[in-house]
């Protein structure tokens, strides 16, 4: 019997939408809701989600790259974030949760090998299913690379839930329209949109309404642009450290939307 864990891909058409930060915060919130959560970093061209979880390169041994090339088992790769988090005020709340990070390789050579050889769909899918079964995960989050290259298409194709993050501007909207069409063409069962970095001068209700009308898909949250997040940099997980901040409140709406999907 295969596990029933869900694969949740997080994607954005362009860089700079705050995708990795959102993925890390979302995964943490779902873990705090009592779910067993994994986070895969396939954004191999700019790895960095580990930093958000307070891990440095020295803690990483084998990576997803080794796993996908049969050089390691998935057990050797999963890093138990709940055991590794230090004293950071926000991150330490994960101590009683169950959340693992599956890092991709940070070394340039490994990255170029993956890009050159590509990854086969069945292989990736098998890998993700093994990850879910081995760690008995309820949710496996995938931080994908921006744009629609082959790796990203593979992640989207294998997803149960696709979350597209966009800023409320016409360039992001244009790119998102293509991703939405692709997701439908690949029969992704659940599609959620999330708006990030919304300028305070626009009404979030209007943004939600406008975008939902354009795409016929739900906008699970409209997260405000906030200097406070830039201040926090990557020293701690923002929504855990500042749970009452408007950004965190809106992010939890997205987490609840993910949890509500059957």
């Amino acid at each position, binding site marked *: 019997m295969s596990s029933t864990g869900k694969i949740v891909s997080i994607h954005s058409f362009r860089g700079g939408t705050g995708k990795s930060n959102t993925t890390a915060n979302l995964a943490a919130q779902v873990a705090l809701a009592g779910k067993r959560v994994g986070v895969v970093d396939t954004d191999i061209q700019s790895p960095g989600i580990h930093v958000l979880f307070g891990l440095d390169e020295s803690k990483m041994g084998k990576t997803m790259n080794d796993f996908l090339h049969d050089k390691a088992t998935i057990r050797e790769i999963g890093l138990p974030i709940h055991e590794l988090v230090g004293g950071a005020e926000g991150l330490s709340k994960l101590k009683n949760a169950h959340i693992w990070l599956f890092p991709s390789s940070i070394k340039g050579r490994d990255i170029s090998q993956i890009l050159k050889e590509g990854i086969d769909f069945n292989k990736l899918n098998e890998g993700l299913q093994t990850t879910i079964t081995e760690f008995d995960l309820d949710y496996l989050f995938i931080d994908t690379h921006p744009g629609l290259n082959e790796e990203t298409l593979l992640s989207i194709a294998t997803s149960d839930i696709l979350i597209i993050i966009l800023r409320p501007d016409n360039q992001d909207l244009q790119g998102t329209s293509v991703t939405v069409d692709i997701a439908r063409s690949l029969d992704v069962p659940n599609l959620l949109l999330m708006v990030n970095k919304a300028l305070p001068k626009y009404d979030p209700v209007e943004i939600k309404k*406008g975008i939902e009308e354009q795409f016929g898909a739900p906008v699970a949250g409209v997260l405000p642009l906030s200097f406070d997040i830039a201040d926090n940099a990557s020293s701690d997980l923002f929504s855990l450290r500042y749970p009452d901040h408007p950004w965190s409140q809106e992010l939890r709406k997205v987490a609840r939307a993910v949890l509500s999907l059957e």
Partner: protein
Amino acid sequence: MTTDVELIEQLKNIAIFSGLSDEALAAIAQHASKRKVAAGDVLMRKGDPGDSLFLIHEGWLKIVTVDSKGDELILNKCGPGEAIGEMALLDRGPRSAGAVALEDGEVLELSRATFENILDHRPDVALGIIRKYSTRLRFATTYIERAIDWAQKIAEGDYSFIDQSQSLVNAAGDDDSKAAQLLSAFFTMVRKVKEREDTLKRQLEKLTFEIDQTRRKQEFEEITSTEFYSNLKEQAKTLRLKRVQK
């Protein structure tokens, strides 16, 4: 008991002494007198002429003033290693707040008379203090000039400096001077003002979303017309059927 080394370290933390050599600080320590205090003792009263500095050895003090109704208002609490009333050594202004012992303890008192006597014999101490104040003043001037510049920009509705000034404000955070704190508070205020202004503007600006449908179709076809994509679509379909069956 506090050793001389510890005492010198504590004196060094007092802003006006921070530029002095250990030897000069030892000379100051020698002339200070220890004094026991009991809970409730008043060390200084607001408005009294200030004539000495207190360095807390043991116990805690509360720094108090009175509010408009005449009730006591605690401004701060100070404990071992902290100094109060340091400005009294240099000027003859009245105490800006009162200080009352919260518990039994011990303080080190340095009177202005004693201090002035040290200065008579130690021009190096006077020079060290002047240098320190000169540096602080220089920094303070920089921060104040910056605040004036920002104030002018805000008046013109130009908030563009916010993005470029974060690092400056962060750096100022390490400086304990009031001017640095002013700059930091000023910066926070500007952001809040801008946020409120943006909220008000929200009603006026309607966001219009436009998608170029021709381009959308074209880009979709570019991606989906590849062999890679048709294989992927087929594989994904099989996979989803399998998942449903499970």
